[in-house]
């Protein structure tokens, strides 16, 4: 008599491959379970990557979901994590092709899915800087909101994402070139926003834990852009701690 572990292993094998036998009755009804798990997987993927789905269409997205699941089966009972490797999968599939930008678009959408579940901390106002002497400012390290995700691509993925907030949007001209920007949660709303390159570099340095002076140097900010960049992190509520 097969053990429980063997029975479940055979059941799982039959779900993966309809030609594999399994000691259940009636065996043809295994298709219900096969369909349930495939649909759950695909719906979780659609939920995390709505714009990728819009750009490739339902049929191709369904095909991608099947292929992705074969290579990256679910490793969690929490459906949220199903999309974790989808950007890497698309990169493997599409690298070097004219559709390589879809992998970066997926990376942006996964950043969004992650920002959606991140903790939101209380933002500090700009006047906290008044507590520090002028010569201390460049050594300050900013703690940024945990939901902040910074994404850069050789493709105009922010333009694509923003243009595809409804079905049947027109394609975005890929010759627009590289874009960078941020994703974050603010007041229960997910914000996806392109940024200028210098501001993006500055935020990347701050997020990596660089002191303010180093972040300013790394981003190549001059006196004018420094003032606006410093103001930006506070007016946008991105700073949650200072040390």
């Amino acid at each position, binding site marked *: 008599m*097969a053990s*429980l572990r063997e029975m479940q292993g055979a059941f799982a094998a039959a779900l993966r491959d309809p030609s594999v036998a399994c000691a259940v009755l009636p065996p043809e009804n295994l298709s219900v379970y096969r369909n349930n798990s495939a649909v759950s*997987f695909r719906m979780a993927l659609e939920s995390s990557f709505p714009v990728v789905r819009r750009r490739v269409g339902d049929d191709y997205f369904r095909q991608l979901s099947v292929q992705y699941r074969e290579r990256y089966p679910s490793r969690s009972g929490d459906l949220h994590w199903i999309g974790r490797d989808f950007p890497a999968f698309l990169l493997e599939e599409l690298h070097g092709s004219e559709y390589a930008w879809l992998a970066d678009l997926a990376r942006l959408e996964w950043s969004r899915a992650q920002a959606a579940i991140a903790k939101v901390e209380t933002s500090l106002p700009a006047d906290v800087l008044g507590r520090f002497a002028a010569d201390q400012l460049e050594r300050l390290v900013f703690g940024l909101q945990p939901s902040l995700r910074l994404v850069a691509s050789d493709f105009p993925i922010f333009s694509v994402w923003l243009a595809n907030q409804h079905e049947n949007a027109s394609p975005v001209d890929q010759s627009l070139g590289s874009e960078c920007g941020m994703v974050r949660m603010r007041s229960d709303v997910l914000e996806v926003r392109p940024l200028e390159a210098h501001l993006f570099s500055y935020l990347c340095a701050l997020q990596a834990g660089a002191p303010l002076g180093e972040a300013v140097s790394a981003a190549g900010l001059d006196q004018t852009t420094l003032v606006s960049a410093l103001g930006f992190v506070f007016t946008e509520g991105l700073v949650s701690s200072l040390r």
Partner: protein
Amino acid sequence: MARLGSRGVSGPIPASAGIGFRSVHHHALDAERPAVGWIEAHTENYFHEGGAAGRALERARANYPLSLHGVGLGLGSAEGVDREHLTRVKHAIARFEPALVSEHACWGRAGGEFFNDLLPLPYTDEAVELLARQVGEAQDFLGVQLLIENVSAYVTFEHSPLKEWEFLSAVSANSGCGLLLDVNNVYVSSKNLGFDAQAFIDGLPPGRVGEIHLAGHAQSGALLIDDHGSQVCEAVWELYRYAVNRFGALPTLIEWDTHIPALSTLVAESRRADVILGEVRGLAA
């Protein structure tokens, strides 16, 4: 009597009808505050510290007693229970302080792959022992008694010598868990697999059932599919009345997870369950 605790309304879930807490109803539930006895949320939707969903549940929690209903632990998996998943359930319990916590009599992973579905168990002594042991370990870790729900089934294992109700009764006796009786699942499985639904109800021990689920199902060829996508059918209402006559008035959930209608439709379904619960209470008085 329910009271307002640190997270909101606390105390036991009342023996009345509740509704599922779904994102499309967050705003309406906040604004309309319908008079339903309690709400039930899927535990896995509240695993994360941040997110709008968790904050919506915190707001709802201030107005309604809460049940957390898990769908992803796979307590009958022979490969064991995912400790990380269990830890997230524990955090959700600490955050939302539910009055009831439930899961399913099923398995969900093999070979490291999760199928994210409620897969059926063979009804054997080995499966009783494994499920009871893993339910017991989960209860010890979580610090709560679990209610374990019967699942809808579309197949039976060739070797499955126990009746499903014998299996569930033994798991409850061996682990100390309560049972969540899903009347729609009993009906769906009875039609798909050819057993007497009332015999199922009769076979469960009174005093172990702590909650009832009601939902709609769909017909697909000769099969009934448990899709939670429509109103409760008349045959399931009749079976519910039969169950309540046997087990007494119990917290009863209207589940509706696909093709979700307006909140008022769910509330109307819950009223119907409340009428039946009231009739049974009247007979008992």
